[in-house]
């Protein structure tokens, strides 16, 4: 199972500032009709990034450096509001593999965990330093380390928190129920072969 675990997320970071950013802002409701989650990667903050005519506005996700960034620095109560799993899905599909903020909407944090994205908490002042550092140098590399529970970048080293069971689930790869279920394929076959109906009730 360990090969599915998540220990460190390394890469460039995007800073989105502001408290109480709700999931409607992260992904507007009209994108919920999508048949699949896979195309959602184009839509984070869509209505803030584009005006009604589709022209680009100034937004951290529109900067050149945002493409390929893996980490998102936010403020307090990020992801409050509607429970849509589409919100973490669209961030993940953009390429965000870890979020670091002061606090989160509870369901948003749970949804993040379901898809293997740590939503880590950091203390407000330390977080402000991370946000400044990422804004000052768009090419700066950061590392969210779930073993040492810290974010490193430049000369910064900021402690982070995650509920311990969530941290373990990420480290051990247990956040992914599919992964666990698939890993037991051999035991599944044993049960399958034991059940009379799978062989049409013929003697084994």
């Amino acid at each position, binding site marked *: *199972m360990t090969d599915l675990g998540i220990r460190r997320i390394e890469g460039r970071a995007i800073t989105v500032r502001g408290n109480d950013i709700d999931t409607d802002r992260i992904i507007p409701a009209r994108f919920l*009709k999508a*048949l*699949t*989650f*896979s195309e959602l990667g184009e839509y984070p903050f869509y209505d803030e990034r584009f005006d009604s005519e589709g022209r680009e506005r100034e937004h951290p996700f529109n900067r050149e450096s945002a493409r390929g960034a893996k980490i998102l620095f936010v403020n307090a109560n990020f992801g409050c509001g509607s429970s849509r799993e589409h919100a973490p899905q669209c961030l993940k599909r953009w390429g965000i593999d870890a979020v670091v903020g002061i606090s989160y909407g509870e369901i948003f944090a749970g949804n993040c965990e*379901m898809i293997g994205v740590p939503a880590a908490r950091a203390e407000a002042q330390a977080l402000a330093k991370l946000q400044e550092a990422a804004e000052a140098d768009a090419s700066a590399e950061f590392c969210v380390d779930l073993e040492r529970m810290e974010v490193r970048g430049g000369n910064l080293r900021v402690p982070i928190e995650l509920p311990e069971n969530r941290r373990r*689930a990420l480290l*051990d790869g*247990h956040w992914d*129920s*599919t992964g*666990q*279920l*698939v890993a*037991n*394929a051999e*035991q*599944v076959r*044993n*049960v*399958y072969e*034991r*059940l*009379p*109906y*799978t062989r*049409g*009730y*013929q*003697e084994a």
Partner: protein
Amino acid sequence: MASGTLYNKIWDSHVVERLPTGQYQLFIGLHLTHEVTTPQAYDMLAERGLRVAWPERTVATVDHIIPTDDLARPYVDEQAELMMQALEKNTRSFGVRFLDFASGRQGIVHVIGPELGMVHPGMTVACGDSHTATHGAFGTLAFGIGTSQVRDVLASQCLSLDPLRVRRIEMNGALAPGVEPKDVILHIIRRLGVKGGIGYAYEYAGSVIEGMSMEARMTVCNMSIEGGARAGYVNPDETTFAYLEGREHAPVGEAWDAALTHWRSFASDADASYDDVVEMRGEDIEPMVTWGIHPGQSVGVHEPLPDPEAFDEAERPTVERAYAHMGFRPGQKMTEVPIDVCFIGSCTNSRISDLRTAAELARGRRVAEGVKAIVVPGSQAVKKQAEEEGLDRVFSEAGFEWRHAGCSMCLGMNTDKLVGDQVCASTSNRNFIGRQGSPRGRTLLMSPSMAAAAALEGRVSDARTLA
């Protein structure tokens, strides 16, 4: 902890492993799927490079979005067309059998699984749909699941689950004439509450249940979820076996004999122990109608609507909201309520027995002026059977519209919808605000004969006075 019940026996024989999360990995014998809750699941599978682990144990159909009047492709509703295309593509590329319209086997997922003989006693069944408990009528453990769990079943043929408690609901005595299976389950939900079943599987038992046909048992099990229960079942017996014999996917010959022995062994033991036992009497049940905004808010057809003061403080806000939405008042009788629409259909009541009951009342009568009444068979097979019996003509001559199979007006995902604040006498299972496609629409849940009677009289009526 219950022991010796059908629930325990199926659970024990299907557990694969205890997972690191503390949940159990359970093997799923039959995975039923439809167009609404699968596209994201297939997509996630493709993304991970996973295949469907046991494609022969999954079957797909189309029911929620399919139009029931004009089936010409592309569908009038663009979103429906896209969902249909996604299902066609996914089932093709993952090797899953798709019972589409051309197969002649299409229908509501909970109608076709049983009628094709796919659901056998002692199985585990899962479907990305909350009314999967329907299949418990065959003595199975059947779970409604979410999209990420559909992905799990596709990828591994398993679910990770917490064990349930078991409540035996023993319905003894006999039903009065004119009282239908729908009335039985509405009565149970009213008694135990819409949250009463949380954490439980319901075992329906007693002479009333034992005396029921398979279709009747399906109606009862279907609405287990409306009572909060995750699953509901009836122990398999001769009625179950007689229903299965000769169906397309039922075993034959020696395999049939072996299957019978196996199936019998799954019934709850006479000395099984339960987490809870509730006893009720069939004689206490009247034809039921819901008056509110959840399936527990129901009354007997002649009973005055309840006083909000009679409810617990916790319940009262919902009761008040129900009165405000429905425009009814305490003390009023439901037989005073005029209706605009009658919907006979849904996975609760769209089987041949339901249509026969409704047709019996409709024969030689006329739908009241100003009422729109539609009859939507649960499957192509039900439709065909009904037409062979001439029921379609009985309905048409009485002024009911005769439609193609699908979920139709059970939920606002296709072109059959309520308009404005219309009142609908409906044989479906949910009367939530907006459920039938209009935010102001008003749904009254009832049995097929009660719905037919409402259509004929133009208001809620006691079907027994028409019979």
